[in-house]
Every structure is written in structure tokens, then in C-alpha cells.
């Protein structure tokens, strides 16, 4: 009874708070100073057609490095806690349906290709490294659902992950040495706005982030799948 009263009071308070925001809100036609700077200067300064990507990879590049680190720590912890025994497993998962396994054979390459497209075109179209990596991981998820006993090459995934993480930091340091600051993208030629090879180091950085995120999430899914049938 008291619990329900508390919830109702809390919801009413939240409603009054948000309602007063809504009533006093009036749309600002002109952009505030910082968004206006990003909207006006991105094309000439960074050379990326997608302003969101320019903000994520260059203006706020250090935050992105932190996000990648957080994901790396999460993946490492999952790998540590879900350590599986090396002994051969006698797993007999229910075989997946014909529809799923046939569709997986057709869709898996397409999904991975779409993920690669999303992260290589991150500076031109919506999306980028994190989105592309997540799309690739859903492709691997489909693979795991169709064949629960599929084995990934952990060594290869870990290699891709560590190589792309290290290269990301090296490119950041190169930006500091050759360009204007850490993770500056202008030490490579900016190219023509709107083409694939433009925006300096942004496509390279985003491709590395995409590979890293894809490898990490696939590794997490594979670890979760592996411990399913253990006692």
C-alpha cells in the first residue's frame, strides 16, 4: 500500500516536473553557439560530410577513446568470468530449424558486408564504428543461433581487436606529432568533401573502431554461447 502510494507520488512529481518543462519550453530557431560552430565549421575544418561523426571522432575523440576502453574492459571481464574448460564438451543442442540455417547462410555475408559498409562510410552517411561493429556482431549472433556448436577462432578475434586498438592509439599519437593535437585527423589529406577517401584519418579511425567493436561483441556472444550447456 505504502509502496504503491510512493510510486504514485513519485510519478506525479516527475509528471509535474516534465510538464512544467514542456509548458515553459519555446523552440529556439537559431542554433546555440557550440552546435552552430560544429554545423558551420565541420566541412571546412574536418572535411566530414556527417557532422555527428566529426564530433565523435575528432572534436570529442578523447571521449570515444574512453568509450572504446570501457567496452574493452567489459569484454575482458566477461572473458575472465566465463572461462570455459578446455576439455571436449559433449553438447547436444537441439538442431536449429531448416529455415533458420538456410536463411543464415544467405544473410550472414550480407549482414557482415552491411556492417563494413556502415563503418567505412561513417564520415558520409549515418552510422560509424560502433554501429557497424554492432551490426557485424548481430551477423555472428545469427551464425551462433543457426549452429550453436560453431567455433570461432578466438586467437584471430583477439588479434583483430588488439591490433585495431593499438593502431587507433598510434593514429591518435601521429595526429599529435604531425597534426595539431591528439587524435587530430588532418595529418592525412582532407580530400574532397563527400567522397569515400576524404576527411583525413576519420575513415581509418572509424574502420579500426568498427573492427574492434565487432570483434569484442562477437567474442562476448561466443563466450555466452559456450557456457550455455555447461553444468
Amino acid at each position: 500500500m505504502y509502496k504503491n502510494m510512493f510510486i504514485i507520488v513519485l510519478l506525479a512529481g516527475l509528471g509535474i516536473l516534465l510538464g512544467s518543462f514542456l509548458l515553459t519550453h519555446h523552440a529556439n530557431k537559431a542554433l546555440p553557439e557550440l552546435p552552430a560552430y560544429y554545423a558551420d565549421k565541420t566541412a571546412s575544418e574536418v572535411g566530414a560530410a556527417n557532422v555527428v561523426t566529426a564530433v565523435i571522432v575528432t572534436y570529442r575523440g578523447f571521449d570515444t577513446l574512453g568509450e572504446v576502453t570501457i567496452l574493452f574492459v567489459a569484454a575482458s571481464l566477461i572473458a575472465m568470468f566465463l572461462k570455459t574448460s578446455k576439455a571436449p564438451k559433449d553438447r547436444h543442442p537441439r538442431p536449429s530449424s531448416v529455415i533458420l540455417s538456410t536463411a543464415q547462410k544467405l544473410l550472414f555475408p550480407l549482414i557482415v558486408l552491411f556492417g563494413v559498409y556502415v563503418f567505412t562510410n561513417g564520415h558520409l552517411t549515418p552510422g560509424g564504428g560502433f554501429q557497424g561493429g554492432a551490426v557485424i556482431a548481430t551477423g555472428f549472433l545469427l551464425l551462433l543461433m543457426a549452429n550453436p556448436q560453431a567455433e570461432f577462432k578466438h586467437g584471430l578475434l583477439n588479434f583483430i581487436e588488439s591490433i585495431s586498438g593499438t593502431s587507433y592509439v598510434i593514429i591518435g599519437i601521429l595526429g599529435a606529432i604531425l597534426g595539431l593535437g591528439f587524435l587530430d585527423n588532418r595529418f592525412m589529406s582532407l580530400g574532397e568533401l563527400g567522397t569515400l577517401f576524404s576527411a583525413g584519418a576519420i575513415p581509418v579511425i572509424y574502420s579500426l573502431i568498427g573492427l574492434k567493436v565487432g570483434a569484442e561483441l562477437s567474442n562476448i556472444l561466443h563466450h555466452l554461447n559456450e557456457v550455455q550447456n555447461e553444468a
Partner: protein
Amino acid sequence: MVVIILTIVLGLVMISMAVTALTAQRVRAAVLASGIVSLIASIIYLLLAAPDVAMTEAAIGSGLTTIIFFYVLNKIRRSDV
């Protein structure tokens, strides 16, 4: 105008799915309902002109998170019995 109406309808469906996720008797139904909440949230992001966020929400929120819930649920059931 159409976008506003669509957003409101989707928002109502989203709230009802969130309530379903809280009140559902079967955990499986609750997990699916929370996945649908993320899916509708990604459509609303797209309507509000944030395609970057919409992609992340669709891939991680409704795709990977739902499946990870199912994996964990399966594991818990096994160790309970």
C-alpha cells in the same frame, strides 16, 4: 503533422510494452517486451532525425541485449533445476 501523430502512437505502444515488461508473468514475455521497447525507441529516434542513435539502439538495444537476456535466462534455469 503525420510525423507527430506517428510519434505519439509509437510512444503509446512503447509505454504499454514497458508496462507489459514490468507486469508480465512469464520472464520470456517480459524480455521480448523490453526488446520491443528498444525497437520502437529506434524508430522514434529515426523520426526525430537522429539516424546515428537509431542504428545503435536497433542493433544493441533490441538485438544484442535481448539475446544476452535469453542466454542468461537459459543459464539460470539450468543451474536452478
